[in-house]
């Protein structure tokens, strides 16, 4: 324990910068993941015959072990944070995509028909009915993606992209358990922290009328 605290203090700078790198990697990956998966989810909910194949492809990506995926990408893209980001984005896609799709297709068809029958355009139906009603699902998907990404980002160290994985790896190499812990603990805290924040947002995002 003593040892651990000493490590924290002596390696403070390194841990801090790794922590920031880690947040940066996770955050950017999830943000780009949302930017890709959310519109795609909306599109495949509208053109449903494309839904199965597209979700299928992202599901296949998901099954590739993360270390292997980083491995595949290095020969193609070299090392560096771009490679790490791409791998992380690929992992973030599925939960967001699937939840967006499920959320939108799950909106009661009679609700949609009421909107159509009253003269709402497709865009109005999407923005005023489908998206608000699907929002809790979408937020849950983003939450899953975030926690997943924070965990997998520890592997970014193997493609030279830094992050808290660096600290853990260093600790493992030098048989320094305190250092391993100094890397692993912030990762866990980060995941829990993000999860809690998003949980709160998810709750806020649930339209009021849905759970009286």
């Amino acid at each position, binding site marked *: 324990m003593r040892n651990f605290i000493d490590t924290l203090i002596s390696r403070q700078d390194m841990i801090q910068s790794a922590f920031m790198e880690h947040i940066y990697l996770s955050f950017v990956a999830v943000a780009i993941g949302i930017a890709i998966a959310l519109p795609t989810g909306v599109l495949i909910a509208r053109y449903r015959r494309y839904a199965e194949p597209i979700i299928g492809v992202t599901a296949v990506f998901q099954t590739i072990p993360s270390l292997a995926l980083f491995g595949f990408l290095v020969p193609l893209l070299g090392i560096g944070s771009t490679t790490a980001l791409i791998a992380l984005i690929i992992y973030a896609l599925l939960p967001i995509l699937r939840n967006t799709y499920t959320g939108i297709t799950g909106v009661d068809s*009679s609700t949609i*028909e*009421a909107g159509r029958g009253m*003269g*709402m355009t497709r865009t109005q139906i999407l923005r005023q009915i489908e998206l608000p009603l699907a929002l809790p699902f979408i937020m849950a998907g983003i939450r899953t993606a975030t926690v997943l990404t924070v965990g997998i980002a520890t592997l970014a160290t193997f493609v030279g992209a830094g992050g808290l994985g660096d600290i853990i790896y260093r600790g493992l190499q030098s048989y320094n358990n305190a250092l391993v812990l100094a890397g692993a603990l912030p990762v866990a805290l980060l995941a829990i922290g993000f999860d809690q924040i998003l949980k709160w947002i998810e709750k806020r995002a649930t339209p009021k009328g*849905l759970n*009286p």
Partner: protein
Amino acid sequence: MIRFEGVTKRFADGTEALKDISLVLPTHQLTVIIGPSGCGKTTLMKMINKLEKPTEGKIYIDEEPITEMDEVQLRRSIGYVIQRIGLFPHMTISDNVSLVPRLVGWSKEKTEPRVRELLDLVGLNPETYMNRYPLELSGGQQQRVGVVRALAGDPNIILMDEPFSALDPISREQLQDELQNLQQTIHKTIVFVTHDMDEALKIADSIVVMRAGKVEQIGSPQELIDEPANEFVQNFIGTERIRRQRSFGERRVKEYIALFDAEWQGQTQEVSLDSTIDEAFRVLENSGLERVAVADRGAIVAYASERHLLQAALLKEEGV
């Protein structure tokens, strides 16, 4: 006035949901379209606001063909109440009711009083209900909101697709009464789809009876009861209901002997030649048998089934 002219709806697999329908739904009247499920009544109604499009034929609103109209504009000008209420659960009652006014760009100053007025109209206190959400209301209250939501943009035409069918019997009766009262005030052209004959007879100015994509009969409730066009309409209204709605007065069995069968094998219950049609009905009902035997001083002269008695009851006075 809404006019259908030779409207046919054929689906991709070749089945015809509607077969060459021509009919007129008069202005300021509540027309009920009724028929068994799958008869095309909902399809017919949804053609009015272009939720369905005819394969052949044309539909006119006040003699203007709706094919020429923009569908979004058209729908905003027509009130629409759907079966399973269809309120938006994430919007307050006020937001639900004001949806169409907001879509067509009413000012806030114009919309809010309108919402209050409408909620008052169906007995929902605006102060209490405006900021509630649909799921906080009972089924009956929700459908009241559904009805006034359709009125919000002050449309001339209102389409109602089995609006009360999901409600419990008591709320349903209440809402039927309220709709009748409301119609006294608003005089809209209402097209009301249902499969419930009691509901149709109660609220309709005129009833369109449909079967298998065709119109079987159009008439006022009284006309349907007095002169069902054919056996289907008669069965659909139901013997029970015709009897309940009609009084047969003092008409007696002996006046209609010609309608009855002279021969019949099977158990019967006797009624006298002098009994009224009503009495014969009652005897038949209590006996649980298929026929009553009409006896003239002990000798049986004819056998009457329920159908025979009904025919007798439906015969016009001059036939007597």
